[in-house]
């Protein structure tokens, strides 16, 4: 896994986040309590001189890890975040694809509608998944949240889509260019707080965090960010290997995303 120049990456992300605030009236960000969205919030704090200028939404399906709830509440207080918790209703008969497709996405649709957000910052990265690699920094969604990947807007020379370009909302992806290891590099350098689930306990750690039903840990002895980075430099597996919903059938990520998933 290639380590990039995090100083340059942060500049690009900061530009995109500021651009979002300039061009949209009602911006929100998704925050899962995971490493990526937490690093993104750190970038935003620095770009806006200490205060995150938009609310952060946690899609809470009630079955997240206890560590995640504690991490969320502690950090929201410490960083003075405007936290919106969007509760989704878990249907016990669903799992994997249908669970992510219905519960998480429905809860997101409801909270977007309730608050009338016109831009949603989502901390996905290109190296997570082949499909996410196809994204734009600013990606318009229609009112049904659908992603039309064949007809994506041209995006070049610092010119991005604005809200005039869609009747729905625009998804904004400020950390699209970051690799998994870059997030850890940044976390280390900036002392970004870390959800303890990422550290090894009894020989296992979580590499990617979802909810308790569908996330399984990977073998690891890493007990610090430094050790996590050392393991990643030589890994032969993909980051989302522990996410069950990705594996059920081929192209599941493509289908989830077309329905409005993150």
């Amino acid at each position: 896994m290639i380590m990039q120049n995090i100083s340059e990456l942060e500049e690009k992300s900061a530009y995109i986040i500021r651009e979002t605030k300039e061009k949209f009236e009602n911006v929100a960000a998704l925050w899962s309590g995971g490493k990526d969205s937490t690093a993104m919030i750190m970038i935003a704090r620095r770009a806006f001189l200490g205060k995150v200028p938009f609310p952060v939404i946690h899609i809470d399906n009630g079955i997240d890890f206890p560590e995640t709830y504690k991490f969320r509440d502690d950090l929201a207080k410490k960083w003075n975040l405007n936290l919106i918790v969007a509760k989704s209703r878990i249907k016990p008969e669903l799992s994997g694809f249908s669970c992510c497709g219905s519960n998480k996405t429905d809860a997101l649709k409801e909270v977007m509608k309730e608050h009338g957000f016109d831009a949603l910052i989502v901390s996905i990265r290109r190296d997570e998944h082949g499909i996410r690699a196809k994204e734009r920094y600013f990606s318009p969604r229609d009112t049904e949240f659908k992603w039309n990947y064949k007809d994506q807007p041209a995006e070049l020379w610092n010119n991005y889509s604005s809200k005039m370009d869609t009747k729905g909302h625009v998804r904004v992806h400020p950390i699209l260019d970051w690799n998994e290891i870059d997030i850890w590099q940044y976390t280390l350098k900036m002392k970004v707080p870390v959800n303890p689930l990422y550290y090894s306990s009894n020989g296992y750690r979580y590499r990617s965090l979802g909810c308790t039903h569908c996330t399984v840990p990977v073998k690891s002895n890493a007990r610090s960010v430094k050790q996590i980075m050392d393991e990643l430099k030589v890994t032969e597996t993909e980051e989302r290997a522990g996410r069950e919903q990705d594996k059920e059938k081929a192209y599941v990520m493509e289908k989830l995303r077309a329905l409005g998933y993150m």
Partner: protein
Amino acid sequence: MDIKRVTLLGNKDHGKSTLIGSLLIATKSATKQRIDEAKKVSMKLGRDFEPGFILDSFEEEREGGLTIDTTRAQITYRDAAFEFIDVPGHEELIGNMISGASYGDFAVLMVSAKGGEGVTEQTRRHLVLAKLLGIRRVVVAVNKMDMVAYKKERFEAIVESVQEFCMNVGFEPGSVVFVPVSAYNADNLVKRSMHIRWYRGKPLMELIYEAASARKKGNRGLRLLFQGTIKSGRKTLYTGKIVNGRLRRGQRILVMPLGKNAVVSSLYVKGKEIGSASEGNNVALEMPGTHATRGCIGFEPESNPRCGTVFEAMVFSVGRIPKKVQLRMNGSEFMADVSVFGEIDLKSGKIKEANSIKPLGTGKAKIRLSRSVVIESAAECPEMGRFLLYDSGKFAGIGVIG
């Protein structure tokens, strides 16, 4: 590690995705899991292993055997890291292609040597676009050499045809180099191939390494693009991005097109107050007494930027560009009148007189804007003289001043 961006151009089916897949494997840059997954899908579709599937991950892309949208793959070679940007070669996906190609510093052009493929109109169109997008060096990989029995004559015919076209389009002599390869068999990708002994030059990755190491030229004067404002406590600060040069606290700058001098009284980068900032930094600053708005540009006071409403530009047209369009440049939007006076002939690469540009064509036009703007050619400062055109909100083309 700094990543060098490589744009991959060429006609559909000339092997762009296969090349990146093969390079990912040959340089050990893809995880075993990703390669295994591509192998499994190839088998399921009842075909030989297709390295391109490491890149093309949409269902439609794999079953249809084409790339729909741009993808990136990172490859390490020697002491450097390269990000390959794969773009669709299909005409109708040109909007996606432009978005991918605009990030590259230089390009690799794939031309298939296979009978019936060779240098096509789309190959030449991509070269014209590359020039317009500011790509100055091109490495031409003449692909599928295995399918023409590695014949030298076939390679040389393609070299001659591409070389001549490139000169007419305006690439500098020596800025376009050629290598015969087979992306599928990994011939001449990382190591010299035993199948092509008549070729005495370097393998593809080495040529890419050299093209990437060539130094950028350009002026070093300050160009600060004003983005907007942010609030911090009771203060309002201007935000902006330095796209060229340096900026110091206490420095006097000239804000155009306002034509006003102002002093930068405080300067912040990444949340901290600092004494000086440079190219690439997103800054926040205070500048008492001047009201800069989005789209304004900061210069050194002694520089003498040209402002106006009329300029000449090279324009690429997605469909037909109407006389009246919206033009987006440096974060601002204008109404613009476009009058075309020339078009590039895609057979020769030369400009001929014309009063309109065909769909997917490139030409020269005089552009008149609704209000005054800084006019600086992209050749002088690439970040400045570039714009996008929209027709009733729909992407219609791109252009560069000069």
